[in-house]
């Protein structure tokens, strides 16, 4: 099985490539990246005027299976990923049962192998049942294929447990992903605390709720020498903490989401529950700080925190609505349109944040077009214009605040293990 991708602008930050090249895929692997590849009888994709990248990686996805299949499952979630240009996604463990044991992790791995459209790497919990009191069987989880641990959705409240998790995770060279939230400070909060929470009369979540725990976890990473990764960092203070810690040589990485980079708390005034997300949409000064941190390398990767919900979970009073945004199918277009097309990010920086960036955080052998590697490839059409219509989503979660927004530059083709899985609007 051979495939040629011809005439595209190949951007591979891991190998410092940015030029018009052809790619030959043979037996599911990258066989050649050079100009003028041509073979008779080999299927050839005309990628002129397209941007050809290593397959995008989203290290923060809630696939919801097992337990919440009415919100998303491995089939719909991986289709959504393919349509969004992602070839590898990490599945967060806050399922029912949570991924705190070998069996549940294996279930996800096996189901994804049979039914999944893209690569799925599970993440295990830090603590049993995410209860925050006893460490999960992390060796078992790693054995089953988990690439990191996280109690995402819930913070690890006890500092001693987090310290032990960091110490323990070192043995497996996996990062501990921290959902930073001081639950007492954040209690009852519905949106970013500030001017707009005052005028909309919604209880605010102060930035300190995130920053307190980010600071604690960075200090614990310094104490233990382990790798802490700050999930969905959303504040200027978090960026300052991470920047400072990196400068001091602490093993810390972080991700930001497309929505925290592009939407402000002002839009919550519609009381549209699709704007309700945790951490909350912040004010414009925080958006600017996140963008600056993208530019100066403080941010390691962009991750969606894809949090699909069923209709009823969002069709209700703002206070009762579930937190979360369905992000897989808009992430690339949002970042391209709002950050690349506007000059905030260079295209190769953007590609790095979705490829080699997350691959390095997770320590996985992905995110490049190096010869001999598995052929996971994402192709973007920088000229495509489309209005976001959640009814066209493959995801069961239609909850997107980008609804009805026109964006320019969309995923055009997604190739996983050398197979075309998505092409011009259709998952194959």
């Amino acid at each position, binding site marked *: 099985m051979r495939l040629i991708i011809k005439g595209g602008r190949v951007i591979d930050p891991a190998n410092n490539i940015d030029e018009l090249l052809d790619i030959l895929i043979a037996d599911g692997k990258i066989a050649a990246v050079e100009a003028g590849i041509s073979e008779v009888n080999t299927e050839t994709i005309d990628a002129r005027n397209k941007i050809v990248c290593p397959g995008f990686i989203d290290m923060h996805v809630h696939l919801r299976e097992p337990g919440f299949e009415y919100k998303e499952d491995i089939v719909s979630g991986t289709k959504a990923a393919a349509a969004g240009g992602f070839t590898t996604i990490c599945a967060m463990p806050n399922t029912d049962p949570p991924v705190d044991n070998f069996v549940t992790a294996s279930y996800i791995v096996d189901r994804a192998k049979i039914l999944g459209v893209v690569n799925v790497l599970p993440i295990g919990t830090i603590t049993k049942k995410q209860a925050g009191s006893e460490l999960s069987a992390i060796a078992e989880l790693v054995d089953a294929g988990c690439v990191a641990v996280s109690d995402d959705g819930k913070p690890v409240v006890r500092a001693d447990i987090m310290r032990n998790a960091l110490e323990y995770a070192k043995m497996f060279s996996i990062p501990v992903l921290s959902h930073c939230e001081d639950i007492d400070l954040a209690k009852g909060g519905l949106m970013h*605390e*500030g*001017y707009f*929470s*005052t*005028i*909309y*009369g*919604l*209880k*605010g979540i102060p930035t300190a709720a995130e920053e307190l725990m980010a600071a604690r976890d960075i200090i614990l990473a310094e104490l233990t020498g382990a790798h802490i990764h700050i999930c969905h960092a959303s504040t200027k203070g978090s960026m300052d903490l991470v920047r400072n810690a990196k400068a001091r040589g602490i093993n810390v990485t972080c991700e930001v989401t497309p929505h925290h980079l592009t939407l402000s708390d002002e839009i919550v005034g*519609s*009381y549209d529950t699709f704007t309700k997300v945790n951490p909350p949409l912040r004010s414009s000064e925080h958006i600017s700080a996140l963008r600056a941190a993208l530019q100066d390398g403080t941010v390691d990767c962009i991750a969606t925190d894809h949090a699909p919900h069923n209709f*009823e979970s969002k*069709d*209700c*009073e*703002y*206070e*009762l609505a579930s937190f979360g945004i369905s992000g897989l199918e808009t992430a690339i277009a949002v970042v391209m349109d709002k950050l690349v097309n506007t000059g905030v990010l260079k295209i190769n920086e953007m590609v790095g944040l979705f490829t080699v960036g997350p691959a390095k955080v997770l320590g996985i052998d992905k995110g490049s077009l190096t010869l001999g590697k598995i052929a996971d490839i994402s192709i973007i059409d920088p000229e495509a214009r489309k209005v976001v219509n959640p009814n066209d989503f493959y995801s069961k979660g239609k909850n997107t605040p980008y609804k009805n927004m026109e964006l320019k530059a969309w995923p055009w083709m997604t190739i996983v293990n050398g197979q075309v899985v998505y092409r011009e609007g259709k998952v194959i």
Partner: protein
Amino acid sequence: MKLEQRKDLLGLRDMSRKEIELILDTAIPMKDVISRDIKKVPALRGKAMVTVFYENSTRTRTSFELAGKYLSADTVNLAVSTSSVQKGESLRDTIKTMEVMGFDLMVIRHAMSGTPHYVAKNTKMRVINAGDGTNEHPTQALLDMYTIKEKKGTLENLKVAIVGDILHSRVARSNIYGLKKFGCEVRVVGPTTLMPPEIEKLGVKSYFSLEEAINGVDVINVLRVQRERQQSGLFPSLDEYARLYMVNTKMLSKAKDDVLILHPGPVNRGVEISSELADSSQALINEQVSNGVAVRMALLFLMMGGARDEINN
């Protein structure tokens, strides 16, 4: 003239000064209707309204119901505690049920901010916000403004101090939005833990000294203190609150001689206001309640009714 462009009344933040003036002016003949021996005009005959209160209320709900009845609308109160809501019916289904029964207008109170906005988006009925969480309570602010205007002759450029739990007060927010549209100098005063962030960006001055805040003011609007705020750690005790923020007769010397005292009720005597002051002639607590009926009549009439002349004839 009607409130023609407007389907709903959700708050004063998005309401124009002209609309507010229209409501307050229309309330004058309504007050006259209430003072008649036969308190009924046929203005809204054939119209139906429902009050849906997901939160306890004595005066607001009764006031709306009576306002509708004086105008000959058919008014129904959905008793939430005995309705299908208790069986787990969603808000959307409750709204739809009311809509298909033929109600023209729904008055809703809800403990969660933004709920009337959600309702308004999902129904053809007109919606009036009778208080949503810590967001707005527009009809309370309208009746406060009516009461002030009635006594002072104008709203223009008055100095108004709002005292108490500004953070959780929908009454404070609606008053700020309304009064600012008339050029009033609005001051907010309360403990720092009950002051919302960046409140001064709303064009108000914030104080923590009651004495400074009421210096030279025309109106003091005293907010009710809720006991659960103390329990959640926002201030040490009701005694200490009273010591710092109870408005009493003695301290009124700082304000203008003809200062008006408003309170949306229900009153915690001896906590946010002294009994002596609450019962004094400067306190307009009862006038506020009766004006509330007139203002709500005006609003119902303007939202569901015909021409203004009908009232006078």
